[in-house]
């Protein structure tokens, strides 16, 4: 299975609505800041950064984009600023420690299975490591008492999708209406679309239901 991705909405760009009644001033300010201020690395070390970038690349591969949506810089920013989300799961160390330990452990898993660092693996090898972390088939002692699946799902995957799907490019590719104040919508029922919503140009592909 390759990384190719085709959006069902190739002609839609949510940013085309920037000056429309769907985008109020405060929304424009917030989104402009996100697009124009990609933070520098301040929390992770350079070796950690390399592992994190490789991980982001596999969780959200973007082969069709010359300029991919940046993800790692925003994870780094949240950790540097010590931003909390409201929950400290008792089974996981505090965020900063969980991330450092988890990245080191993933790298060790790569070395154990393939005798190379994670960032040097092929795409399919990296995917195999991520799946092993999810199923708990791990070998590294670096994990300690941190459950690998919890780290993967509650930190890695969660943080990555929360950054990626907050980006206008992601809104466009899934046909999300995006910001909608003050105008909102008029046509609410099935198969109805306001003129300022995405037009579906081809059927989305279904590979089968994800398994819990």
């Amino acid at each position: 299975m390759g990384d190719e991705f085709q959006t069902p909405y190739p002609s839609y760009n949510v940013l085309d609505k920037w000056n429309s009644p769907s985008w109020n001033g405060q929304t424009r300010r917030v989104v402009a800041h996100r697009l124009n201020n990609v933070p520098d690395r301040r929390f992770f070390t350079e070796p950690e950064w390399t592992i994190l970038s490789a991980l982001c690349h596999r969780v959200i591969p973007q082969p069709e984009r010359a300029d991919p949506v940046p993800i790692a810089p925003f994870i780094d920013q949240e950790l540097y600023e010590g931003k909390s989300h409201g929950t400290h799961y008792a089974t996981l160390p505090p965020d900063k420690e969980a991330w450092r330990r988890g990245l080191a452990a993933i790298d060790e898993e790569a070395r154990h299975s393939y005798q190379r660092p994670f960032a040097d693996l092929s795409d399919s090898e990296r995917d195999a490591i991520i799946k092993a972390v999810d199923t708990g088939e791990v070998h590294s002692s670096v994990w300690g008492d941190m459950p690998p699946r919890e780290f993967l799902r509650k930190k890695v995957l969660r943080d990555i999708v929360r950054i990626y799907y907050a980006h206008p490019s992601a809104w466009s590719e899934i046909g999300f209406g995006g910001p909608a104040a003050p105008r909102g919508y008029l046509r609410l029922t099935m198969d109805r679309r306001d003129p300022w919503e995405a037009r579906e140009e081809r059927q989305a592909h279904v590979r089968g239901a994800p398994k819990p």
Partner: protein
Amino acid sequence: MRCYSESEEVDFAIVGTGAGGGVLAARLAEAGFSVIAFDAGPFWRPLEEFASDEREQSKLYWLQNRISGGEHPIEFGENNSGRAVGGSTVHFQMVALRWRPEWFAARSKLGYGFDWPVSWEEMWRYYAEIEDAMKISGPVNYPWGPPRGRYPYRAHEVNAAGLVLAKGAEALGVPWAPTPLATVSAPRGRSHPCVYRGFCKTGCSTNAKQSMLITFVPRAIKAGCEIRDLAMVGRIETRNGRVTELVYHRAGEWRRQRAKNIVVAGYAIETPRLLLSSASAEFPDGLANGSGLVGKYFMAHSNDAAWAVMPEEIRWYKGPPSMAVCEHWNYEDKKDFHGGYAFMSQGPLPVDFATALVANTGVFGAELREWMALYNHMGGLKIVGETDPQENNRVELSDEKDEFGLPLPKITFSYSENDKNLQQHSKKFMRSMLEAAGGSNFFDTTSTAHLMGGCRMGFSPKDSVVNALGRSWDISTLWVCDGSLFPTSGGVNPSITIAANAARIADGIKALGARGEL
């Protein structure tokens, strides 16, 4: 806004301005009491300060970490906790359902949980008051429970996500209804009708949502109540069995406010946390804790969901997220578990949906992007499932401290066997409904919603933290008025029950005052 000096002993200092504290502040101020309502969060101006953006709007949530343990640890933050004037009603999804009458006597009438020290008839009178004050938009006929009056505003047109539920319910032969919602379907004062922008969970930027911020907080101010925002209350002081003052952190320093009565309305985590962390030589186990029950019998709702790909374009981002509801299993007792659940149609925004997807399935890579590209074809049903009140599900103080030096709360939560049976039942039923509606490619997710209990009201100083009016059995000038009072959780969203209960408590306090018993 009227302001009080810190040395003035006000009649009531209320900690929290959500569905409990907001209603109580307005009703007590209108009754002539001097009132200050404190909130840890800011006093937002939605028209200028709310963006249409999930990430930005996380500013509405209580993001300070809570330690979450037990077999089924709860997610806090955006999942259930607000930090703003208006509390969680600023980001709630506006679902305004009444309790089934029998639930107020769950132990005597249905054989599980505990009875409330309140009759359903009394609660129903206050529901009517709250529904009118919040101008609930609802259907002409509601299919479940005893007859009720007309909702003040007509129901909204049901969106496609809701029509998936309707189609499935009709195919399976169970009733459904447009959800009664606290967002206006016609103009009200300075609120325009809802424009269906769909960002309800991240704060309404058009003020159609009838949150506390739009309804009871302005009423409170008009009646002479002071709202003191960005004020984190850290401690309640007592002397000779009476409260004397609140200690709170505002604008970089600790300050004190004198008050005759103090009402804690910080919701099911912060209320027990404040009572426990106010422990003193006089009350070494925390305030109002003679029963040892402060923080115990804490509950959440199970929030399991079934999802499917629909052949039609659904575009569930339009309109309030839950526009259709089915309460069939709240009113049907022939089933293999006690308690009940409502379920509603869903409309999660992209970040919210992607988070649920990866947390529950671990999907990643191109497959994840493809699943997200089905966003406009997804249909979903999600429960608000009753959970058992269990002593071991609890809020305690940890050894860790927050930025104010206050102990962080530690929460322990595990589902009971009955809770799990309920969840299983719901997932099976909702999947069959999505199938009947024409869906395919099914999957389930699990989560929790809402927080309740931890300072339950009851019949005696042994069985509860406070009496039926939220008054501490131990300290007669200390009160609780929020969701932490719930002895059981019920199978519907708690907001209007918290609000109705607060209006009832306000009338009780007024009556006590008139008799000189405060």
